[in-house]
Structure formats: structure tokens, C-alpha cells
């Protein structure tokens, strides 16, 4: 009985090692990406099959854009706080509220323009088909506003993408690029 138990326990341990080994082997590329300086850029490299040259060029752009991005974001937070403060102190719509709203909207537009500009810069390094896919993906994630928050039947929170609320994404950006 004891001998059998030892044999079965050893077999189970070996099977656990096999499980761990196969799992690590399959997820090795993701683990490597996670340990890099910019894991998100590793996604970009994989998704759009970037060469080493393309990757280093995009990485440089990404680092430069990151500085601009943080500044724009800080300004946006400041305008957002102004708007919040004006709204809380003005019981009705007034010139101050309209001005604060306009400043906040302008800043949001600046942010969007910066993102789009970076998107075009990055896509110019890619091959044509990858560039087109990249722009479409960024557009869908960032620019399309049709997201409807709702709670599913299982009580889980979702943000459902409302396709019809978005402008025609496939044509507008690509035609600008041509």
C-alpha cells in the first residue's frame, strides 16, 4: 500500500512539473514582454510584425510622445478641476461655466489631436497593411465615443461598444491618409 502510494505521489508530482513546464513554454513570450521596459510596445511589435529597425524608431517616438502626453494630461486635469469648481459655485449656466467648459473641450481636442498625430507618425514607419490596421485599432479604442456602460445578467460591469453611435470609422481616417 505504502509503496503504491509513493509511486502514485511521484507520478502526480511529475505530472505537475509537466503542467508547469508546458504552461511556461507556451506563455514564455508574454512573460518576456512583461519584463521589458515597455511591454505595450512588445505587443505592438508582435501585432504588427515590426522589424528591429521599425521597433527602435517607434520606441523613440513613443518615449518622446510620452513626455508630451503627460503635459497635455496635466493641463487637461487642471481645466477639468476649473470646470468642476465653476460648476459647483454657479447654480445656473453662466458665462464662466461656458468658458470653463470651452477651455476643457479645447484641451480635450488638443489631447485627441496629439494622439492622432502620434498615431500617424507611428503608422508611417509600418508597412501599408499593418499601418492601416493600426490606425483602425487606435481609432476604435480611443476616438470612437459610442461606449455604453451597462450591467450584464451575471452582475458584471461592461462597456458595450455601440457601433451605430460611431461615425464611419473605416473610411474617414484612411481617406485622410491617402
Amino acid at each position, binding site marked *: 500500500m505504502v509503496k503504491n502510494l509513493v509511486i502514485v505521489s511521484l507520478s502526480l508530482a511529475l505530472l505537475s512539473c509537466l503542467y508547469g513546464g*508546458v504552461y511556461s513554454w507556451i506563455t514564455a513570450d508574454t512573460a518576456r514582454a512583461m519584463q521589458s521596459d515597455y511591454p505595450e510596445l512588445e505587443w505592438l511589435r508582435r501585432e504588427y510584425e515590426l522589424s528591429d529597425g521599425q521597433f527602435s524608431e517607434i520606441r523613440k517616438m513613443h518615449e518622446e510622445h510620452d513626455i508630451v502626453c503627460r503635459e497635455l494630461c496635466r493641463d487637461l486635469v487642471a481645466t477639468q478641476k476649473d470646470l468642476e469648481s465653476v460648476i459647483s459655485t454657479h447654480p445656473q449656466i453662466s458665462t464662466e461655466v461656458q468658458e470653463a467648459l470651452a477651455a476643457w473641450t479645447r484641451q480635450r481636442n488638443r489631447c485627441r489631436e496629439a494622439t492622432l498625430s502620434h498615431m500617424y507618425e507611428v503608422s508611417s514607419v509600418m508597412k501599408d497593411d499593418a499601418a492601416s490596421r493600426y490606425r483602425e485599432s487606435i481609432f476604435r479604442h480611443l476616438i470612437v465615443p459610442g461606449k455604453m456602460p451597462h450591467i450584464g445578467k451575471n452582475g458584471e460591469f461592461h462597456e458595450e461598444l455601440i457601433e451605430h453611435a460611431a461615425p464611419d470609422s473605416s473610411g474617414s481616417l484612411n481617406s485622410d491618409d491617402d
Partner: protein
Amino acid sequence: MKDEKPIPELEEWKIDLPEDPHFHSAVWREIAMRDATSPANRLRDILDHLLIPRLAIPAASVAILVVFLGASLHGLRNREKAWENLGLVYSSAIDPISHTGAISSSLSDH
């Protein structure tokens, strides 16, 4: 002594067995079944079955195959999920508006 001498009625008494010829085997079967239902016996039975040379090799092969497939599926699913999340991280990383939440909370902390 009183106990050393059996009572004559008891000495002559015999169990009135049913006439069923399978009675004895049925009783032994019942006892064997009760033994088998104890957890230790069940474990011993399983181990004995698993280690029968005729069954051990197919059982090990099936176990290896199941573990290999299970680990592969689990790995592939998590790998795709991780790449998908990194895609979302990239989209947020290049968008100043997505940073707003993080910066606004850090500003309010100061």
C-alpha cells in the same frame, strides 16, 4: 462452576438458516461490499488498479496527454488574454485623456 457447563438448550440450539442455496455467498458478498466502501479500502483498490502493469502504461499515457492538453489550453488562453490587455495598455499609453484619472488622483493626494 456454573459458567463452565453449557446450558443444554444452548448446546442443542441451531440457527434456522433459510433454504436459499445462495445464502452463504450473499452474506460474504455483503461483507465484502461493506469492506470496500471504507475510504482506505477504496484508496487501496484504486492504487492497486492503477499499478496493474497492464493498466499502468495506458493510464500514464492518458494522464500525460490530459496534462499536456490542459496546460496548453490554459497557457494559450492566458497568453491571448495577456496580449489583448497589453494592446489596451498601449492604446491608453498614447492617449493623454486616458491618463487623466491617474494624474487627477495623484494631484488630489497632494
